[in-house]
């Protein structure tokens, strides 16, 4: 790095450009910058992007994604991955809605607050329980995380649909949730959306856990070199297991916001954000190779993806072309991640 700087001072134009590009690539604000550039470029063709209404939508869509992606960061940091997060979300949504629904749910006669509390408990319990299942497969059975969560993704997703068909006549969704529940997804406190406050709380806690606690430091050490971590007395398996539990827990919490926003529990919840979950974290700069990540980066990544999503839909693009463009953006992020690794190694 210092060599590059010296060359730049000598006035070698090409080297200066390389150095500038390098600094940009390694900057943690790269994605935030890209988001701003995207908005500026889009403004002439989609002026709605400047309206408060649009940004309210963006915040509403971004918060649940941010929570799932924050959970995802925990497993990415230990060089794992959880592809099943969105399926976990769907199951949590369906089961919790089944508990809360006034259409013949078990608590239909109980007071609303009790139903809501029970529902939230189910969200959290199902989310972390399924996360624990993934974690157990990865740590106890030593299976590759990709395979484990790819298969549990299908398994959970199928299960969610099956449960819905068992519980409902039309088999599509479970509605008629208690009135108060919708507040979680749509309500405001002092003008701020409740979902924003919840997401903020999750992010702050996650940030503290990752950067200030023993557990967080262990996760990074495992991500960098699990064998060296083990020799240094890190309980590798236990820590990795809890990373998956936290990832599942976040999926369960995100399911609360989604379900409250739609006021129904549905098994197709989150299918659209299947890749966004990993994508948001990776675009933000959380490394797929493990050992590198920050909650702030995930915030930037989720913001970028949501803004791009909104911008493209304002243009009236079809769902298919939006998928293609977003896929391209995630691919670009993965390429940049690989380049960063190379730059850092050089």
């Amino acid at each position, binding site marked *: 790095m210092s060599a590059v700087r010296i060359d730049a001072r000598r006035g070698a134009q090409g080297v200066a450009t390389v150095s500038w590009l390098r600094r940009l690539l390694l900057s943690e604000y790269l994605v935030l910058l890209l988001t701003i550039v995207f908005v500026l470029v889009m403004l002439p063709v989609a002026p709605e992007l400047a309206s408060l209404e649009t940004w309210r939508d963006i915040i509403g869509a971004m918060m649940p994604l941010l929570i799932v992606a924050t959970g995802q960061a925990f497993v990415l940091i230990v060089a794992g991955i959880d592809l099943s997060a969105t399926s976990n979300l769907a199951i949590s949504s369906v089961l919790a809605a089944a508990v809360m629904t006034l259409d013949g749910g078990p608590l239909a006669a109980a007071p609303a607050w009790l139903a809501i509390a029970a529902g939230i408990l189910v969200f959290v319990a199902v989310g972390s329980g399924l996360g624990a299942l993934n974690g157990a497969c990865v740590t106890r059975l030593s299976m590759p995380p990709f395979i484990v969560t790819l298969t549990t993704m299908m398994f959970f997703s199928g299960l969610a649909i099956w449960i819905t068909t068992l519980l409902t006549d039309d088999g599509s969704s479970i509605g008629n949730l208690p009135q108060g529940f919708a507040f979680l997804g749509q309500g405001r406190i002092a003008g701020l959306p409740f979902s924003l406050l919840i997401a903020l709380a999750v992010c702050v806690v996650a940030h503290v856990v990752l950067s200030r606690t023993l557990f967080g*430091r262990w996760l990074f050490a495992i991500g960098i070199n699990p064998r060296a971590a083990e*020799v240094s*007395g*890190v309980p590798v398996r236990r820590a990795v297991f809890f990373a998956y539990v936290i990832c599942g827990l976040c999926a369960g919490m995100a399911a609360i916001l989604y379900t409250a926003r739609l006021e129904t529990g549905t098994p197709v919840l989150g299918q659209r954000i299947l890749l966004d979950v990993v994508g948001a974290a990776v675009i933000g700069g959380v490394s797929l190779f493990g050992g590198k990540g920050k909650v702030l980066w995930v915030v930037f990544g989720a913001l970028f993806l949501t803004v791009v999503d909104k911008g493209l839909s304002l243009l009236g693009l079809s769902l298919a072309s939006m998928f293609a463009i977003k896929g391209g953006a995630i691919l670009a992020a993965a390429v940049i991640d690989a380049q960063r690794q190379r730059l850092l190694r050089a």
Partner: protein
Amino acid sequence: MPATPLLVIEGLCKSFFGVQVLFDVGLTLRPGEVLALVGENGSGKSTTMNILGGVHRPDRGRMTIDGTDYAPRGPRDAEARGIAFIHQELNLFRNLTIEENLFIGGFPRLARWLPLIDRRRVREHAAALLAAIDLDLAPNTPVSRLSQGERQLVEIAKALGGDARIVIFDEPTTSLTDRETQRLFAQIERLRDKGIGVIYISHILGDVMRLCDRVTVLRDGHVVGDAARADLTVDRLITLMVGRTIDQIYPPRAPAIRPGPPALEVRGLSQRGMVESLDFTVAQGEVVGVAGLMGAGRSEMARILFGLDPFERGTILVDGRPLERVTPLTAMDRGMAFLTEDRRAEGLLMEASIADNIALPSLPRFAAGVARLLERTRLGDAVERTGRDVQVNATDFAATLAKNLSGGNQQKVVIGKWLLRAPRLFILDEPTRGIDVGAKYEVYKIINQLAAAGTGVLMISSEIEELIGMCDRILVMAHGEIRAEIERAAFDREAILRAAMWDSVRHGAAA
């Protein structure tokens, strides 16, 4: 014996990072001859062979094959000139069959223009090659199903198939049974009868005396002996290998005159194929060395003691109390520390900072409350102090990554991370491997300070000098057993090496 030499190496010199490891090394190999190359670990055997194989380029020196110059630029050149290596770790693809392995370098095609493998010809050639080495196996047997000895024979077949004229064996018998060894020797003799030149590298001097026509002895990068077998004995070989003056200075240390109570007691520790009935004690304030050849079970023992590998029988007592479930965590709770021989893969987080590395094993001691929040100031101060204590050469411990340090400084970081825990018992596996002389001296000083403060030290090293210079007592291991226990007053290089080569001495006496 034909007079024209097959291979001549003359005046080979080689330095790595300014340290010269070969000084005018020369040897001659005639067709139909088995030449043994012997020497201690680090005497220059591997470097010489790596130069011959085109892996390293020599600084000076000349090699000829059949009288014409040979200056390989890569392993492919070596192969083209008919040199075949049969390594300790075999280079076979275990997921493929024997025949696929034999022809992996170039399969016969159905036709010149058609890139399809001619299966029938592969099968026939493979069968012929296997017959030539008396290996009664179907050519389509997967290599994963073969024993270690059979794999070695397949390697030989591969060398024959490639029309090798010079075959180099590097410690071929360490993982073979007696019967497999006999079979291997019979094949080597057939290679000799065919006029192929064989270079045989081994620590097992009994085998060397039985098999080889001539022996070249290396010591510290010099050729110190080159003689026909008839003029040699195992005793003479050992004297040639070790006879050097102590060229390293060790910091003065007051040896533990009255050793304290035992820090570590090991009773009947066994794990099949690794270690057998180990019994020994390390007292507080005592430095106990472990000598032995590669594969003697020293590192395996260390890993078992620290809970990284399992054991079947035996007891480990730390400070007089048995360790119930041995894991790195329980071992560390009782004050154990472990410096691994593989610094890159297990000792350090290369991509993390010096500070993070030093802090890692001690983190739980700096985590407060239910949330286990780290007390960052206290941790930072402690890490800084420890880093300075072990003299890691860097200005900013939090900003410098471990991978950017020299080997010596990396090792100091590893030592530092354990010192922060103030260990009661420190197991060091090759603590000075790959570090320069200056850093070695500093590592020795730290070990002495630890012992003076009452820590028990168990130190594994392949450098006998180092053990003699540092230890109160030396355990000598061979084949997973402790073969000798020598007190400081009786330290003697030859006695140690003799015990480490116990088998070869026995074989040698029998031969």
